[in-house]
């Protein structure tokens, strides 16, 4: 237990230290911007990993929840002048309720059907965001005002870097806590064998719904904050490709590894930036990574690397 706890907190400490010293190596705001985007993606991926990596359920529509969060903030805080924090909470509650309502029947479905259903939800959300241009600004998206709380305005990369960094540490901490709890074990049991989990008393449906809702809410909150940070949101942030991108990050970094999800998000946020010079090859590289990861290292980057270092097996 102690060793495990120790391992848990070391990971978190290392991550915190990296976040703390990184800005010293970033020459300008553009790099901070990328780091922030990586942070947002990482938050969503940590949540999505609870669903995909730990509970073994797939979602091809998580960008939809991210998008709802973003637009809830954009519309409620912008158009209707709500305090941003209230708009964020309202978005999260709405996503939570929506996810709950669809999860109940959908998570009964398995494998391909679940993929189909979540994909459908994601696509419907992005179409609604694109079409209801009176509210959402349509395909061009909408401008969102900076985040204000207690009279303080969060603006600029330098501020947001620390906000996102702190939140990411928080989200990772929550995720690690959850995994190492009875509920976390129940989730993993659902992945391992639903029927075996049931016969020792695990209400598998309940936990599947719960983790689906939780990961959706993570995505929504990240979406809300992203909207305020970026200042511009478009339906592209909610579409099928974004969902696939998120799944890719989780899978590439390492399913069932919280830090793997973070690493996956960071690497795959950087990659397209590094590849802008080779924009023509971007899709080939992304598609190739996806296939190669699944075929050659199905456990993902971080767990595969960790396995090479026997001493730190439980990273």
């Amino acid at each position, binding site marked *: 237990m102690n060793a495990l706890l120790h391992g848990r907190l070391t990971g978190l400490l290392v991550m915190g230290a990296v976040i703390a010293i990184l800005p010293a190596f970033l020459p300008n705001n553009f790099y901070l911007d990328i780091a922030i985007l990586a942070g947002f993606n990482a938050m969503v991926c940590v949540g999505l990993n609870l669903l995909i990596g730990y509970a073994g359920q797939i979602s091809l529509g998580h960008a939809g929840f991210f998008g709802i969060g973003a637009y809830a903030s954009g519309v409620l805080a912008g158009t209707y002048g709500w305090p941003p924090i209230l708009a964020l909470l309202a978005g999260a509650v709405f996503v939570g309720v929506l996810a709950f309502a669809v999860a109940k029947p959908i998570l009964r479905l398995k494998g391909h*059907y679940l*993929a189909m259903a979540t994909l459908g*939800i994601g696509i*419907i959300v992005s179409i609604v965001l694109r079409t209801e241009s009176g509210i959402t600004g349509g395909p061009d998206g909408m401008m969102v005002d900076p985040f204000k709380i207690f009279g303080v305005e969060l603006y600029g990369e330098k501020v947001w870097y620390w906000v996102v960094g702190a939140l990411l540490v928080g989200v990772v901490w929550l995720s690690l806590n959850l995994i190492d709890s009875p509920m976390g074990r129940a989730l993993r049991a659902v992945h391992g064998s639903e029927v075996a989990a049931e016969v020792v008393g695990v209400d598998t449906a309940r936990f599947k719904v719960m983790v689906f809702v939780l990961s959706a809410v993570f995505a929504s909150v990240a979406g809300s904050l992203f909207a305020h940070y970026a200042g511009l949101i478009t339906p592209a942030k909610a579409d099928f490709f974004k969902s696939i991108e998120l799944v890719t990050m989780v899978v590439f970094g390492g399913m069932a590894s919280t830090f793997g999800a973070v690493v996956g998000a960071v690497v795959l946020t950087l990659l397209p930036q590094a590849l802008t010079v080779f924009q023509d090859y971007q899709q080939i590289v992304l598609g190739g990574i996806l296939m190669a990861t699944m075929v050659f290292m199905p456990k993902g980057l971080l767990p595969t690397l960790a396995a090479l270092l026997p001493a730190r097996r439980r990273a």
Partner: protein
Amino acid sequence: MFAELLQYMLSGLTIGAIYALAGLGFSIIYNASHVINFAQGEFIMIGGMASATLTASGVPLPLAILIGCGGAMLVGVLVAKFAVERARNASTVTLIIITIGASIFLRGVAELIWGKDFKRLDAFSGETPIQILGASMQPQSLWVVGCAAVLIVAIGLFFAKTLTGKAMLATSHNRLAAQLVGIDVKRVVLASFALSAALGAVGGAVVAPITFSYTEMGIMLGLKGFTAAVLGGLGNGPGAVVGGVIVGVAEALGAGYISSAYKDAIAFVIILAVLLFMPNGLFGKRGTERV
């Protein structure tokens, strides 16, 4: 009023025929390997792009379609061989991700070869609309529906009459038993990818004069084909065909009478409703898990 309805029905039937072909492709691969091939749409794209660009450079149309078809089949076999087969015992989630990766990869390669812009393919027999009771139909629509019908019947005969077809059917019913009676299951999987790729490529070629061809054309067509397959009950070939036509017609009617902007959402709304209320599709069988 009636003319309008007829108009929507005709466009729905045309696009529904393509969904049906795509859905059938999904079903064939699913039956042989229990894989949902998210790269199905890319087979359509390969067919459309190859025939459009080849004819533009002077290759006669039938030959261009044939080359596109062959190219797609080759790609299908490669995907099966190097991605799907290697992950044979992987989970559903893993296999879904592999085929999604394949689809993105193929799109990337296609962009490199053909560029991202729209390509034009002339209609096979002119563009003078045919007037029917006040609605107009493009001659190309007849090609689409006709080709789809011929292919669907041909596939039906293939499974019913030929040894290879029967072997593929047997594999879908019971993989182990098929293996025991000497069917090379690996080859069946490869054949299923090749067959689905051919279906998709022909679909892409005949629909290209109506929609243009471009590297992203396969995304929505593929996803709608998937909804068609699920609607008809995964693995049910005739079901997928009916599903495709239903999705196509519903979409056209929805675009006409409800909102053209929500056209693409209609298929997914239908499929969600079906999944929630009849999780095995319209014609699917109930399965029981063995423990």
